[in-house]
């Protein structure tokens, strides 16, 4: 932990994260254009940047008696949580901050999203955002325990909470191969924590956009940026935890990390377009009655193998 982080990592990390977020947004726009049958769907690639420009200059709307302070805290927390969750992920060989408890740190930062979304939903003093905020808490309670168990299973396989050690433990065989249940649960919960794709009820179109219904202008821009950054971080974390990190033939570690991250990200974005929304009143039960026992069993097996 006390080794000095190279200065270039501090600069490169936010740039990489922003690039990944933009990539996810671009791919999402293209898929949307294909689904709606827009002619020349590749033209939709510039949509995210156009949206950025629009939101920068857009005037803010105001709701009646909002709690602006809490709302802003919520919006900024989303970006900050995504960035801080990402600092423990290796950009190649080594992360920006190589904490000895990296996995717990990642988990803690990602839980901050609960607070972020609830505050953003509470702030505008309006029904739909508030409903969205509560929906995300319900989602959090549904996905968090299986998610934690999946993370702990990876840590157990490596015998360490340091993400670098988890990568090191996968030199022979990727964790995704011999802990498939944990990997699958991780992917489901990654989608849930980034309130993305089928788990996007917190910002669902059936409640007029949920948490972000009343956000406009720069507020909305920061919120959306944070959401894509979070998705990128969730996808990027799957690489060191389950997909062997930067290990791979021929190419350098950073390139392998980038390729694997982009592949996971693409799968998550694609899943959004293939699946209907999952409501938590139904998913909660499966999560607790099926996913938790499944991950515990997986953990038991991993524990026996490691011993």
């Amino acid at each position, binding site marked *: 932990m006390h080794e000095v982080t190279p200065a270039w990592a501090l600069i490169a990390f936010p740039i990489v994260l922003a690039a990944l977020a933009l990539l996810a947004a671009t791919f999402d726009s293209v898929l949307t254009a294909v*689904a709606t*049958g827009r002619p020349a769907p590749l033209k939709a690639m510039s949509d995210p940047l156009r949206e950025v420009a629009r939101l920068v200059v857009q005037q803010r709307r105001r709701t009646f*008696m909002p709690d602006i302070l809490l709302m802003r805290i919520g919006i900024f927390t989303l970006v900050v949580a995504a960035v801080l969750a990402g600092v423990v992920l290796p950009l190649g060989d080594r992360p920006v901050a190589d904490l000895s408890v990296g996995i717990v740190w990642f988990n803690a930062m990602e839980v901050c999203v609960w607070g972020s979304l609830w505050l953003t939903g509470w702030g505008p003093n309006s*029904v739909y955002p508030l409903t969205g905020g509560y929906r995300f808490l319900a989602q959090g309670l549904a996905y968090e325990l299986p998610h934690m168990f999946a993370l702990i299973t990876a840590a157990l396989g490596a015998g360490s909470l340091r993400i670098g050690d988890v990568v090191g433990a996968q030199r022979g065989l990727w964790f995704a191969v011999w802990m498939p249940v944990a990997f699958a649960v991780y992917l489901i919960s990654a989608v849930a924590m980034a309130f993305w794709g089928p788990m996007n009820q917190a910002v669902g179109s059936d409640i007029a956009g949920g948490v972000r219904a009343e956000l406009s202008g720069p507020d909305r821009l920061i919120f959306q940026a944070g959401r894509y950054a979070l998705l990128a971080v969730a996808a990027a974390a799957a690489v060191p935890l389950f997909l062997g990190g930067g290990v791979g033939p021929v190419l350098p570690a950073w390139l392998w990390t980038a390729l694997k991250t982009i592949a996971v990200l693409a799968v998550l974005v694609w899943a959004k*377009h*293939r699946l*209907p929304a*999952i*409501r938590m*009143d139904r998913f909660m039960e499966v999560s607790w009655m099926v996913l938790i026992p499944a991950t515990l069993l997986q953990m038991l097996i991993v524990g026996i193998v490691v011993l």
Partner: protein
Amino acid sequence: MGAPGGLRMADRGPDRDGLKLDRLHVPMGPVLRDWPSGLVVDTTLQGDVIQQATVRTVSGSGDQRFWDEPWLSAMRGPHVTRGEAERRRAASHLDSLGRLLGVAGWLSAAAEARRLRDRVLAAASREEAVRDYMRFERRVRRSRLLRWMLRDLGVIEEACRLPGPGGGMSGDVATRLGRWLTETGAALTAMDDASRLEDGEGPRGPVEDRPAEKVLAVLPDLLVGAELAAARLIVASLDPDLDQLRSVHEAVHA
């Protein structure tokens, strides 16, 4: 305790868990994405669970019953072919399907339904439409996730005799979705039928009965106890055609 900022404070009432909690009065509609335009459901919410609901409509700009039009004009006299009517029926169901799938959060399937609807209305050939529709139908029917999310919502008993496509609206949301899919397939197949249209069985039931009235009558009971997300799905699965009501008012005026 006064009213903060002049807002009416929410009152309290018993909820389904036996607690006495705050209530909020929230109107849903008339303008919402994938919502029957002109419909307003005044709800009393506790959290996101609907405790009471009343239905009203606001008049829109439409003055003709687009989806029922072939059947109505056949009754008035001019020769309307069955194929033409079936084309309209298929488009109507695809419109409803697009809305329900949109509310269910499956945006790409919803977009596909809408694209099919537009092509069917724009005189696509039968073979082409049937082929593309089959692919769409297979995709929707195959989704176990969708079925899991839709079943047991908004159950209407057979005894209600609620008019609707393919013999009624009974069953849950998933059943109604399945009925739309079956009916659309049948309607597309009959699109080239050149015989004369004789009956009055429109896409949403007998056109003379104005089935939307009956749907709106049972809607509040179905919504009570449902969460917002479930309520949206229930409304979308009934998809009342409010144009049918509007012409009632106009008839009274005339």
